[in-house]
């Protein structure tokens, strides 16, 4: 396996598959922003080295695929990982916490010290949370553009986050935290996983 070299496109496809678990080329094309035919070519190549498994139009990554991904990340980004990436991560962490707090604020309200589900009866409160999310996505966009100078692949998350934000403003609140659509929360988490891979870090589990 050590002699197998992934292209950046292959890496994007594998990372997306890991997130989606099982997906068609069409779905992976949407997630990565890569054209469908390129995704299909990646699928072919990845299948031939055992990195993915295909059945009935759907693809799934394999443990070998995960290994390939990690190796690619270490090789490609290893050289970049240094003071700059560390500084970037230090700025990302608080923003990540703010984001999770904002999503939680959408879902729950504080009533006299206890958290209860948000009934969405208070328009002002909801607008305030949306505004928070907007502000955070704005800051994340800037951060992604910075890291994107080294890893252009990551800019896709900027586009997906802002697309979701657009839907939120258009009134489709599923795009805040629903798992069945490309909500900001979903995209943010996928982005976080990807960023951890690039930076070579583990998720900070205790903090949640």
């Amino acid at each position, binding site marked *: 396996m050590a002699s197998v070299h992934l292209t950046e496109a292959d890496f994007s496809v594998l990372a997306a598959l*890991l*997130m989606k*678990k099982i997906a068609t080329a069409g779905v992976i094309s949407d997630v990565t922003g890569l054209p469908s035919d390129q995704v299909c070519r990646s699928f072919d190549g990845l299948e031939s080295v055992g990195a993915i498994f295909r059945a009935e139009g759907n693809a799934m990554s394999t443990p070998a695929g995960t290994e390939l991904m990690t190796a690619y990340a270490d090789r490609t980004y290893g050289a970049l990982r240094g003071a700059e990436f560390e500084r970037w991560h230090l700025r990302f962490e608080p923003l990540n*916490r703010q984001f*999770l*707090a904002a*999503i*939680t604020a959408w*879902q*729950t*309200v*504080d*009533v*006299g*010290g*206890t*958290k*209860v*589900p948000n*009934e969405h*009866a*208070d*328009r*002002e*409160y909801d*607008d*305030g949370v*949306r*505004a928070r999310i*907007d*502000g955070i996505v704005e800051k994340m966009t800037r951060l992604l553009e910075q890291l994107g100078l080294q890893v252009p692949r990551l800019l896709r998350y900027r586009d997906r986050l802002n697309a979701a934000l657009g839907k939120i*403003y*258009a*009134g*489709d609140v599923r795009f805040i*935290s*629903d*798992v069945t659509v490309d*909500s900001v*929360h*979903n995209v943010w*988490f*996928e982005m976080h*996983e990807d960023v951890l891979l690039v930076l070579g870090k583990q*998720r900070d*589990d*205790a*903090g*949640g």
Partner: protein
Amino acid sequence: MPAADAPPQTDPGLAAGSVLAFEEADHRNVARLGGKGAGLVRMTQAGLPVPPGFIITTDVCRERQRDGRLPAGFAQVVARYICRLEDRTSRSFGRGPAPLLVSVRSGAPVSMPGMMDTILNLGLNAETAAALARETGDRVFAAHVFVRFLRMYSEIVFGASGEGITLAAAPFISKLADEADDESFEQLAGACQAALTEDCGQRVPSDGAEQLMGAIGAVFDSWNSRRAATYRKFNGIADDLGTAVVVQAMVFGNLGAPSGTGVAFSRDPLTGEDALFGEFLPGGQGEDVVAGTTTPTKLRVAAEEMPALFADFAGVAKRLEELYRDVVDIEFTIERGRLYILQVRAAKRTARAALRCAAEFLSEGRLTEAEALGSVTLAQVRQLARPGFDAAAVTEAKAQGRRLAAGIGASPGQVSGMVSLDPDRAEEAAKSGQRILLVRPTTSPHDLHGMLAAGGILTSLGGATSHAAVVARALNKPCVVGCTALTIDPATRRFRFNGTWYGEGTELSIDGSSGEIFAGSLAIASSVESLAPMEALFAAADRLARSRIFARVATPAQVAAVLNHGATGVMIRLGDVLATSGRLQQTIDAVLAARGSGMPLGGMPEQLADLLVPLLQAANGADFMLRAIDLGTGEAAEALQTIDLFAREARLALPLGVPELIDAQARALALALERTDYHGRVHFTVRHVVDPNEMREVAAITAAAIPTALRERVAVGATITSLRGALMASDIARSAGSLWVEVRSLLAGAFGYPPAVMLTAEPLDDYLRRGLLSSDPRSALDDAMMRIFLGVAAAAVKNPACRVGVRLSGAFSEEMTAALFRIGFRAFIVDLDEVRAARIALGKQAAL
């Protein structure tokens, strides 16, 4: 209260009344004062202890937007109002020895995002900070407040990041802690300003008046921020409304004794109990409470220590409840033993508290019936009806030591299930019908498929903002996170609570609100919460609505439950009862064996009567509606895979395809009535009737089957499910004792939609967003459909002997129900867990 000196606003350029002190303004003029300003005005004029202030009305913002600059003379007028504040507070703005500090906040007529945040402690400079230090006797406090102000001002007015200020200030604050001289605050100010200038080339003015103008300008500018403008565009709010600016004197919770700051609810926001609830931080300033740096005391405790003060406060809280006609949450500060109200809002509260307060406000005469009912939502009523663990079962489990641990309750709901430690295995197990609890250290998008399949989620790590918590809430599944007593060993597929190991597949129960975890499974009760304190509200709703509410049930226990919830009657689908008692197949076999011979189905009436007797007894005199066996829906359809059956025996699809079946059921009903002492009103209805001829035949068959003595107690009727039936309602009603319209079936048929479209959120939600339908068949009745229902209502009028009503399935739509009530429907059949919601919905509509 008019001021002693009339406000001199004769400067050219600035219209009279553009700037108003709280005591001068008219609180009803929200368009000019903004929401927050109007609230402060109202409280001031109601005699409540509000720190004094003034409002720069939206007029000025509009003028500035129009002319590109502030009106001439504006600065002078503001200066004059500051003077008045100085007089009122005996403090001086921008100078010692007792500096006046003000807060500046935006106040639009309609609240929107993107508006400027509040700037606190404006008026601070090196001189006044030193004066504040002397006055409070606390240099470090004064220094922190000063630095915070500089940061806030920079961030809000200059858009700078402010971090540099904090960093630059740190060494000076440490020095101040030990010693101070006349230069100390100057040096602190110098360092902060230098950092700010380096960061963004700006300085915070030291002159109070300049600071104030800068802040006011920032408020006006924020009206045109991208976010605010976008919000207005999306919500159809005019861009020329403008924003007001509220300038108010600050009070200090750490000045003199007793002093402090706190937040109080006029009633308990969790339970609705009429008791002051909140926290108080003696000697604390507002930001300290929010920052959570010190632990406040419970309000009840503080009240014991300062009884006179808090007796006053309780009085103020009640005055505010009168003024707002609602439960309120009050931010307050006590400075030198004087109480000041800073902010009042309608309090956020739980569903339970909302219902209880509405009921008690009604009983106390604070709200009319219409207002009380209008203040609650169906979502709140439904939340209380959610199924959960049976309370007795929980008590027993605790007594047996089955409570294993507790974590953080992240998503409400109570569920039992088999533990699965892996999302793939969870998904597999769920496919075979198992109830699964997904148990992991944490979750991530990789686990999503497992989370979707599970009935509940438990993680050992993480907090209320973790992935598991957010996703569980989005999926509306119970979830407990951060259970530190839990350890998981994925390799051996085991998990451990404290000392004991358990294997994957063990049964556990979790409570997503309390965070508790129990061994084994716990029985479910259909309605956990006792709603006794809210009875006044339900009673008022019933009185106003004067409607009959039937609940669909299948067992005697359910009969008792719905009557407890206030249903006036029950509706029983005989097909369901047969299915649950396992007699359905043999009944169908008997029907098919008879092969249309015309002979009565021997033995069947007696067997069916056996099933009906306990139900009649449980009904205890409430209205009893029996809906004839209909093989097309409900449990019967599931059990029989009706489509195949109907293909083979098409006559079963017609209401009178097997007249012997109608005969048998009517006989069963008669037998059951004879065997019980039930004396209420009985309905016997047949589904899918479309023609008056059918109705006449049903009536005839039933009359022949029921002995004369009982006949007049049984109203024979039809349940309409089709357009044709609805259009023929008048004619059908002529031979019927009752007529019921199934709303959802009618709409589905009218729109031509299958259940997959009618019963789900998507694809119709997306369809509606795209503007492809002018009306949502799941929740609204458009003109065309209303005409049909008006026809049915007319049928009732033309046939007073026929009782007419509607059947609302599932979580009924409030809008639709209200519309039907408005055109005269007063009898409703709902699902068994919707009785309370129905009572409130009808009451709300009746109260209008």
